[in-house]
């Protein structure tokens, strides 16, 4: 069975939990940006957490299923239509062969997910089905979807769990206009002056439209750098370092003006000082932000980060119980 893509949407890609272990060759992690929303979709259609889904950005695809199928739409709020009849998100949807699915206007957030029973069946590249368009691997021929693509669906898997038809309201993600993002300061945060540090942590920042799977750029007061010696080989900008690997979620501020959070498909390294890192539990929160979202960066320590990680995993495990 397959989904026939009539219109591809703005930037629709195949994603799974990501490509781990190839960072040293420059391959980013990739994978669904909002992992929690994606996993809710897999849960609804009877998959395991490992199946690949379609990640839609603002405008989703219009497609026809060529066979009966079970799908679910999770993530950012959006109107969903099956044969022009509006249906609900966060619910199991049963399609008949020939049914057409399309989307209306997104009402918050940035990304929503299409999960299909059996998962999106594209060949794995370096251990993952996730699309990495710059490197031309994963997904459908290493690129975003195009009109005319036939997206193969895998055979149903047995996850051994009870059937879930609807995700409880309480378990659904929130798409707020004001968010707090917890960060661990560190890496090259000594490049900041005291004033720069308080500018970063005490002032609100606003997500700009310059935000994609690689990075999210925020507007705000800017930051001041400490007076420092320039390391040999780094370059002339006060925010330059000798090029090194970038932690996923790390925050750099080229030139001191706009912080950029590097997300799951970011470059794997480079020469800009990073002043901290979004904790793993809050990467989905960042992924859910739409341009204009007011964001405060809240400093936490390792113990607090690990406690938040535990809470995130508990919620994840609750869904998969």
């Amino acid at each position: 069975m397959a989904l026939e893509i009539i219109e591809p949407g703005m930037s629709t890609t195949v994603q799974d939990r990501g490509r781990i272990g190839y960072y040293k060759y420059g391959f980013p992690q990739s994978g669904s940006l909002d992992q929690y929303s994606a996993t809710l979709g897999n849960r609804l259609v009877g998959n395991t957490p490992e199946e690949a889904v379609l990640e839609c950005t603002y405008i989703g695809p219009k497609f026809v299923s060529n066979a009966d199928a079970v799908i679910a739409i999770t993530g950012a709020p959006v109107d969903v239509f099956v044969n022009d009849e509006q249906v609900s998100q966060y619910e199991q949807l049963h399609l008949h062969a020939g049914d057409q699915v399309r989307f209306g206007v997104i009402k918050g957030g940035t990304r929503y997910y299409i999960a299909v029973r059996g998962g999106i069946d594209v060949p794995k590249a370096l251990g993952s089905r996730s699309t990495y368009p710059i490197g031309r691997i994963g997904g459908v021929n290493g690129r975003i979807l195009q009109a005319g693509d036939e997206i193969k669906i895998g055979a149903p898997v047995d996850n051994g769990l009870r059937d879930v038809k609807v995700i409880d309201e309480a378990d659904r993600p929130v798409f707020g206009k004001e968010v707090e993002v917890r960060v661990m300061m560190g890496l090259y945060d000594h490049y900041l002056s005291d004033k720069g540090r308080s500018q970063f942590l005490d002032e609100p920042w606003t997500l700009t439209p310059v935000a994609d799977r690689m990075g999210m750029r925020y507007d705000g007061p800017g930051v001041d750098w400490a007076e420092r010696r320039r390391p040999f080989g780094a370059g002339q900008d006060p925010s330059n370092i000798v090029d090194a690997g970038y932690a996923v979620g790390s925050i750099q501020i080229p030139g001191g003006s706009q912080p950029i959070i590097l997300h799951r498909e970011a470059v794997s390294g480079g020469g800009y000082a990073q002043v901290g890192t979004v904790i793993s539990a809050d990467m989905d929160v960042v992924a859910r932000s739409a341009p204009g979202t007011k964001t405060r960066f809240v400093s936490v320590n390792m113990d607090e980060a690990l406690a938040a990680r535990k809470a995130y995993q508990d919620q994840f495990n609750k869904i998969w119980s």
Partner: protein
Amino acid sequence: MTEQHKARYTWGGDEFLLVEVEEDMSLQANFTVHGMAAALEAKKLDGLVDIAPGNAALLIRFNPDVIAPAELESIVKSLEDELRSTPPGVVQTRVIEVPVWFEDPFTKETMTRFREGFHQTPDGDDVEYGAQVNNLSSKEEFLRRYYESPWIVSMVGFVAGLPFLYQLVERDQQLVVPKYLSPRTDTPELTLGHGGCFGAIYAVRGAGGYQMMGILPAPIYQPEMTLPDFTEFSVLFKPGDIVKYRPIDETEYYSIKKECEAGTYKYKEIPFAFDMGASLADPAAYNKKIVEALNGA
């Protein structure tokens, strides 16, 4: 006497540990980074997810549910101590000859699109600027210095397969060039760039802030894995590879491109035992040896 971990250890959130071996770039720092990466890899620790050695810093990704951050940190610190007290040995690597068309029309066309507001010299070009900031008399002199002495791959990353290269010359001989004032949104695929003291070969087309020196005819990243150099893996360069550029002209550029299209092109390479101590003691003499080994092959 053993030097106790002088590197700077810092967390990148709850999944990453960054070990900054030195703030400044040097061949010694780079060897320590790669030595630590290899030693850590050999330990096959549970909970170790990824090791990404940089130019002078090592980035380690771990799963804190499996290995406690403090435990990992103490393991890496003892590896650092061991390495710092061991004299540099000889590393088995290879020398690869990389043909480059310097001052090619493709990068020159791109330069014209990113001048005002992007570049330090809106009316000049990148190679000319490189010569000027290094107080060299001409572009030719700058380029001769660029390709005459070999380079070592000091890091792979940024995008898939992109090598950072550090020239095997003394610090006062290093070619240091500022990056663009504001990064370009476009760089031709296979551009040879230079920023700070580093060369970089853009494995794929995309954004970039390094000054553009020239272009390569043959891929260094091939996801289709059809050319002889890529049958095992899509990425050509590994840290520790030694690169010797060979300037080519338009005719040879297109003839190599043809070989690539025919699926027959293979980079010239020889196995080489790199002795860091000898390289540091007399870089010029040791570089001569490297080039002779390559040309004798």
